[in-house]
């Protein structure tokens, strides 16, 4: 029987495999909760010098009904001390090592979070601690609640988190935002010395995670805003009421407890009590005195959402277009995580998934354009791509590519050229024939990271200059990020 192409299309497009809808929905709700909490927390924290302004805001809102009127305006703070200060035995910073993405996809985290969250029976309001909700998986740690939902967020990013959820004893369901009573306790780890900066940014509501609903800041009695804070957030459309949060900083760890529902003063007092107890237990555990790094593995059926994985493994190293010094030469941002895992020399290779080869665990890409006066077939633009890829075995990948084997093959006849001042074992310079424009390939292997540049130019000399300059500059940028404990470039900070 002959079917129309359109019928086949409809059939194919509408035949998605059925996911586990329960897990799917749980993932949506968890992701939404992280986004909401990120926005809330970013808006809530204050600097030491902002205390007076915060008090003024609090006094102002105290005389008006909660959430009435326009969205609250974050306090305008003066930059606080960069290092914070010890307060009542609480450390100012924590000697965390950097988080490292390992070649097998796991993470080495600065430490494992101890379980300092209340057990059932210890939680106010008779809330029941949910079994198995301790978020110690890499997914939860990487997709922490603060500042990580938008890749363009400015400032320090938490390296991980752990949280414990609670629900009302009379509920048979998993805790969800719309339930009458629910709570969670969350620990968030920040890179060494950055928690104070993160708190300042949150207070200023800056960066990509913004607070999009009305809220009140409520100073924590007896504590500066850089050390502790509280806030109430209007979530009537989500929860039927408010969410109340209390948060404290211990070195470069923040601990917060949030509750849905209940009387404001009562619930905030309960939240403070929970946080105080967790802080005391964390300090008593002495895990922050000399944090021990721990490898976090992915649980079965869990994997990391892209493109964050690539962006974490590989920093943004694409050179500025200015290094080329050509009028009109420009870079098209952002520097994307690339899906071209099988084509590491983009623009000079054909993907060949039929052949095995070393596959990158992460890849990022930046594109450049140069207007051409001859208005060629590509619309008058010469294109240049810079890809940088992290391989399990960079040496093997480099050898495969230069020998024209592996997961991709050269587009056309490729001729290697001398690259003065560069080691042939780790660099590769070549031209490629049968192309509409002069084209130059420049590769640099830096550890297990391969930098590939494929540049078009009006002349071969121009293409060569673009390719070699960008490759060398990208390598310098990569080196500036240092090497992580596993020796991989770019993971040092």
């Amino acid at each position, binding site marked *: 029987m002959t079917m129309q192409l359109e019928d086949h299309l409809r059939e*194919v497009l509408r035949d998605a495999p059925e996911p586990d809808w329960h897990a799917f929905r749980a993932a949506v709700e968890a992701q939404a909760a992280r986004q909401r909490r990120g926005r809330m927390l970013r808006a809530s924290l204050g600097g030491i010098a902002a205390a007076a302004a915060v008090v003024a805001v609090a006094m102002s809102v105290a005389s008006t009904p909660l959430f009435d009127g326009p969205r609250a305006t974050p306090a305008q703070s003066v930059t606080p001390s960069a290092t914070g200060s010890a307060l009542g035995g609480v450390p100012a910073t924590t000697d965390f090592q950097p988080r490292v993405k390992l070649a097998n996809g796991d993470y080495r985290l600065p430490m494992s979070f101890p379980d300092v969250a209340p057990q059932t029976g210890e939680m106010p309001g008779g809330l029941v601690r949910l079994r198995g909700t301790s978020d110690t998986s890499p997914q939860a740690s990487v997709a922490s609640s603060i500042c990580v939902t938008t890749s363009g967020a400015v400032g320090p990013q938490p390296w991980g988190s752990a949280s414990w959820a609670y629900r009302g004893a009379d509920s048979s369901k998993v805790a969800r935002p719309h339930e009458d009573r629910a709570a969670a306790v969350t620990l968030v780890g920040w890179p060494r010395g950055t928690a104070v900066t993160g708190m300042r940014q949150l207070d200023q509501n800056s960066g990509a995670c913004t607070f999009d609903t009305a809220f009140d800041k409520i100073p924590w009695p007896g504590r500066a805003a850089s050390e502790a804070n509280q806030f109430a957030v209007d979530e009537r459309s989500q929860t039927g009421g408010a969410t109340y949060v209390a948060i404290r900083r211990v070195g470069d760890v923040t601990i917060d407890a949030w509750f849905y529902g209940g009387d404001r003063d009562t619930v905030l007092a309960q939240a403070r009590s929970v946080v105080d107890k967790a802080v005391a237990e964390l300090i008593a555990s002495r895990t922050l005195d000399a944090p021990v790094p721990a490898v976090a593995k992915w649980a079965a059926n869990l994997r990391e959402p892209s493109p964050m994985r690539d962006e974490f493994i590989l920093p943004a190293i694409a050179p500025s277009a200015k290094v080329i010094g050509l009028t009109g030469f420009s870079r098209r941002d952002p520097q994307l995580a690339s899906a071209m895992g099988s084509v590491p020399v983009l623009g000079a290779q054909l*993907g060949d*998934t039929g052949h095995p080869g070393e596959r990158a665990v992460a890849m990022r890409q930046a594109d450049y354009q140069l207007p051409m006066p001859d208005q060629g077939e590509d619309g008058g633009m010469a294109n240049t791509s810079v890809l940088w890829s992290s391989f399990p075995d960079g040496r093997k990948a480099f050898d495969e590519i230069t020998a024209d084997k592996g997961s991709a093959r050269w587009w056309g006849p490729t001729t290697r050229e001398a690259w003065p001042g560069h080691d042939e074992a780790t660099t590769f310079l070549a031209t490629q024939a049968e192309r509409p424009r002069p084209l130059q390939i420049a590769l640099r292997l830096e550890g297990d990271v391969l930098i590939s540049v494929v540049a078009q130019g009006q002349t071969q000399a121009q293409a060569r200059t673009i390719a070699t300059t960008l490759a060398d500059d990208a390598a310098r940028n990569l080196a500036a990020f240092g090497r992580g404990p596993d020796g991989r470039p770019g993971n040092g900070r």
Partner: protein
Amino acid sequence: MTKNEGAPDLDAWLDGAMPRIYGLAYALTGDRHAAEDLSQEALATVVSKWRTVSRAQNSTAYARKIVVNTFLSQKRKRWTREVISDDVVTELVPSTSDHASGLVDREALVEALRELPPRQRTAVTLRYYEDLSDADIAALMGCSVSTVRSSIHHALAALRSGAVSLDVRGVSS
């Protein structure tokens, strides 16, 4: 404590929107995991901003727009110079023509769809998965109606051509 009156019910909307948005993401990506990532991110964005979104516009349309924009931004530029080699295409030609013809048809078409440029695939998906009008597709993709028609025309031509060259039985124009 009661929910805010007048606000659409989030639970009901989510139950209804999940299959639709996931299906759209799958139709665009052709990959289950990528579709789950894409659709969950879009749905979570709507859920986290439910109060604003539900009162301002059609929530499902908003989620659909997030999916389309995210898909196109992820695919932008990098697709343009990716070419699958002849070796792979050859593997799709059935070694015999007298069995499993339905499977071969489907695989060949799926493969041909995968080779479409992202904007062509998006236009085709919005027409044949969502059954949207050209004007609605144009509004969603941020282009003119004529561009939509051109994209779909070229996409169908490419799919038709691929089907013939791959000896896909049962597909005709």
